């Protein structure tokens, strides 16, 4: 199949599904983290663009900067992620078409995209972008290796035989021919080069997801070892470039956060993750031990609710006193129970469309290329090994699990051989038609339903919320002299209402709305913004005249426990579920005089 034809087919298929998702789906980030990373990039927290994206390599931020300078209104972060998914799908579709021929390839590519489109386009987030980019990169790399191994081998052997008089041949060659050989060589290496580029992009989007794919990549390469050997120098150079560049880029990104301005932020991350993200332990026992130790159980509850922007009471050292209580109470995970749990989670994987793609491809390998049948078991074993590792850690979630299936499914593609079973063209068109109509129907009726990235259940991303956020934003904008401190929940809801992902959050748009929780506390620009309002310790300074609190009326006890004798709270305004509050100190004299009056 010609290059042009395969690319066109793949583009048409993917454009169709992209259009379906955009028209009928709910265009949102799959993770709120992405929204706030994009906001950080566009300088929403501070006063200027900031490409340091915390979880995504800063190189992505730097790469997008020129686009932001050219068209500052557009949410390039989102568009970049959508494009990465589109590109990866197109690449996978292209390779499927090339490997399986026009007819089977068209069916498989359509099926592949149909099963994945919603999981990726409508829940687009950096981890998944990283997985799909890496997977597409690996596939392209492997495809480059197996593309025409026999031809290359023959060329190699002719090269070897003509080696003694290479110089003569070179001299004998016309400059045009030298150019041609270089050009054809380059052309042959293009898939490998592009594959490396995609994998590198994947490593930028999320380092861990890229690393997670590496064992699968190794497995896939092992199954085409003979072909790798035929082009060994290309493979070795490619892999060397891949790893050196990937590690270099990763360490570049890591070094950014070694700067002194990030010291507070970085130190805070460990306790934040332990208190906010880790859940597989007996929290009640920790609460009681904290109390027994003379710490505050209620503070621990607040921390578990992600309320922690008090630089004194919740300083890193004092948080460690709480987090130190956690490890002994981790849920026990006896090794003997792992096989049983593994079988259960394997059963649950059946709800993931990625699993079925892997299964179908495995069956196709068995049918077309029975010599490689071991791939069924080895890839399954690798997935199970990863799953048991995560089970032991207690952190097996849908988006990670589907990453495993994605890698093992995609790396099955190079092992497919020629389809000998002919299929009639009309039949192909009929199947494609059915898939297309069925998808149009499902997207039109339930396009806003997506799989939850954590548990894989179908749900929509809309937060049930009766509040009128335009009023909330108007209220905030009408008081430019005030700083607003938000509960994490309110802060996260802002991400659904402030601006759609394809529009950039304007510079400074979040400067006066600081979250008491989440991962944003201690970011340099946020510390700076707070400082400019005279706030050094957000929760303590909540009683300052220029501070208004949104959606957190439960801080009185905490303030009285640690900072002040007596604190009162007034409700300033309420819009639906969102209420603005003013905390104020109650003067002892006031209360005395009031008592006297009574």
């Amino acid at each position, binding site marked *: 199949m010609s290059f042009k034809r395969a690319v066109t087919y793949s583009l048409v298929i993917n454009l169709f599904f992209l259009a379906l998702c955009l028209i009928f789906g709910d265009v949102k980030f799959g993770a709120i983290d992405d929204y706030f990373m994009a906001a950080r990039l566009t300088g929403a927290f501070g006063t200027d663009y900031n490409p340091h994206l915390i979880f995504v390599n800063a190189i992505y931020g730097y790469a997008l900067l020129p686009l932001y300078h050219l068209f500052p209104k557009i949410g390039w972060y989102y568009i970049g992620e959508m494009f990465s998914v589109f590109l990866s799908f197109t690449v996978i579709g292209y390779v499927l078409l090339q490997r399986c021929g026009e007819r089977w390839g068209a069916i498989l590519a359509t099926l592949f995209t149909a099963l994945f489109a919603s999981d990726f386009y409508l829940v687009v987030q950096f981890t998944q972008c990283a997985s799909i980019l890496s997977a597409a990169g690996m596939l392209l790399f492997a495809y480059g290796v197996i593309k025409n191994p026999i031809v290359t081998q023959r060329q190699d052997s002719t090269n070897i035989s003509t080696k003694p008089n290479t110089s003569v041949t070179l001299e004998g060659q016309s400059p045009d021919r030298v150019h041609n050989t270089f050009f054809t060589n380059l052309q042959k290496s293009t898939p490998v080069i592009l594959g490396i580029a995609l994998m590198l992009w994947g490593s930028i989007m999320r380092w861990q997801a890229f690393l997670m794919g590496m064992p699968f990549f190794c497995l896939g390469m092992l199954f085409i070892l003979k072909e790798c050997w035929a082009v060994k120098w290309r493979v070795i150079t490619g892999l060397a470039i891949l790893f050196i560049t990937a590690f270099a880029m990763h360490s570049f990104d890591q070094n950014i956060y070694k700067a002194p301005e990030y010291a507070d932020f970085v130190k805070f991350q460990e306790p934040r993750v332990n208190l906010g993200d880790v859940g597989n332990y007996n929290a009640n*026992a920790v609460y*009681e*031990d904290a*109390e*027994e*130790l*003379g710490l505050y*159980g209620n503070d621990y509850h607040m921390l578990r609710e992600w309320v922690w922007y008090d630089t004194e009471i919740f300083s890193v050292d004092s948080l460690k006193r709480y987090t130190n209580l956690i*490890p*002994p*109470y981790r849920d*026990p995970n*006896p090794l*003997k*129970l792992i*096989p*049983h749990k593994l*079988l259960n989670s*394997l*059963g649950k994987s*059946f*709800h993931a469309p990625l699993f079925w793609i892997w*299964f179908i491809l*495995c*069956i196709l390998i*068995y049918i077309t290329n*029975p010599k490689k*049948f*071991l791939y*069924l*078991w080895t890839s*399954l074993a690798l997935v199970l090994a990863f799953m048991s590792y995560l089970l032991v850690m207690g952190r097996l979630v849908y988006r990670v699990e589907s990453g495993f299936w994605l890698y093992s499914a995609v790396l099955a593609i190079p092992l497919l051989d020629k389809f000998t079973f002919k299929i009639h063209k009309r039949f192909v068109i009929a199947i494609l038609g059915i898939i297309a109509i069925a998808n149009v129907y499902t997207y039109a009726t339930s396009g806003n339903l997506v799989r939850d990235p954590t548990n894989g259940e179908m749900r929509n991303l809309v937060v049930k919320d009766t509040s009128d956020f335009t009023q909330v934003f108007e209220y905030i904008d009408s008081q430019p002299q005030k700083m607003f401190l938000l509960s994490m929940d309110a802060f996260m809801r802002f991400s659904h209402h402030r601006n759609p992902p394809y529009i950039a959050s304007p510079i400074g748009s979040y400067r006066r709305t600081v979250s008491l929780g989440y991962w944003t506390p201690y970011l340099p620009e946020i510390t700076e913004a707070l400082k400019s309002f005279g706030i050094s310790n957000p929760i303590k300074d909540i009683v300052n005249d220029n501070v208004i609190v949104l959606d957190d009326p439960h801080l009185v006890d905490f303030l009285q426990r640690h900072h002040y004798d007596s604190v009162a709270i007034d409700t300033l305004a309420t819009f639906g579920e969102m209420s603005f509050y003013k905390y104020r100190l109650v003067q002892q004299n006031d209360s005395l005089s009031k008592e006297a009056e009574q």
Partner: protein
Amino acid sequence: MRSLLYPLIASALITITPFLATFEKGQDIVRGLFSYETFALLLFIIFVKDKIQGHAQSSSQKQSRPFFTLYLILLALLICALFAIAWIDLQNILAIKNRNTSWYGLLPFATCSLAIAMVWQIKSFHLRAISFILFTTLIIHLAAQNQYAAQPLAQFTTIDYLERIAPKPAQRKNITEEFKNKYTVTDSVSITRNYIDTTRNNVVILVESWGIPLEINRFEKQLKFFNGLKITSGIHNRMYSRTRTAEREDLIYEIHRDTAMHRDTAFIPQHLARTNIETTYLFGGNIQEHQRTKYIYNIGFKNVFFGDSLNDVIIANKLDSILTDSTQKHFIAWTTRDTKFPLEGFTSIYQSDADAVDSAYTQYLAQTLDLITHLARKHPDTRFIVQGDHNPILSPIKFQERFYKRWVPFVILN
């Protein structure tokens, strides 16, 4: 087709026979139709058997002899494995039903022999085909289970076995019958109120970290300290393992709602304040400990005494001197602190040696209980109400696991 069906039926025979042999009316055991492992083993047995037969037919060649022996060994191993799986499968089902092996032990030998005989004449699949069959069987089983969980297709004997023998944490939530037969076991939160006797002196003692050990002997040994005294003893439940909660809970007189339905609690010292009984609270530690400043005064004691870090002996002496004052009646509440964790002399809360912690704890607790006994002997007219505040926490997990969760003793003396 026969090559597939016969092993399937044979493995079903091995799996279902013990199930049927132990079947009782009304039992509800979810069990697969055939054991996945025996199915796999049978397929391999046929495969190896065919290889051996192939070799036997062309036995003239010398080269094949080592392979021939190898295959024979392999066949023997596979058959042993088949017996082993069948045996484990039987044991699994007997374990569920709590039965001994007895004559059932013969079943695996019978069914396995029959199974091998059944498949002996079958032609083998190619190795790749076997792999493919096993792979799809696994997937079909899992897919079917997702649809209809009540009747799984395959049974995973070894996985069930591993699950069965996995260490299970000791049951610490419910008090066993053994305790219930010997002691009063109650959910009551009003032990103090029920046993208080306003016609004489009352001492309410909250013993720090005094829980109910899982071993009844250990508890009985603790109660022996009170030998010779008039004693009522039992076990009661706590909602939380918090000293602060226990301290307040034990002094509750009544909980009522005002006209606006706000809940309010009246405490015994508040109630006694109306009489001429002198109420005193004693604690050897600092007033800041467990935020006692926030509540102890609201409970309504006339006298409140905090040491800065006084041990139980000193407070017991103080209590003794108060009780010797016979000019008026007393109500005294005392929270002990010698057995408070982390115990003195242990640097690490969780990493210390559980046995060392245990023996230190036992010793400290014995001292405190002994002090109480002395007081009770010296003041036979005074009512002593002694309770634990919570089971030991904030200590090595292995040690914590020797006690029931949220159950504490109560002892009424004199």
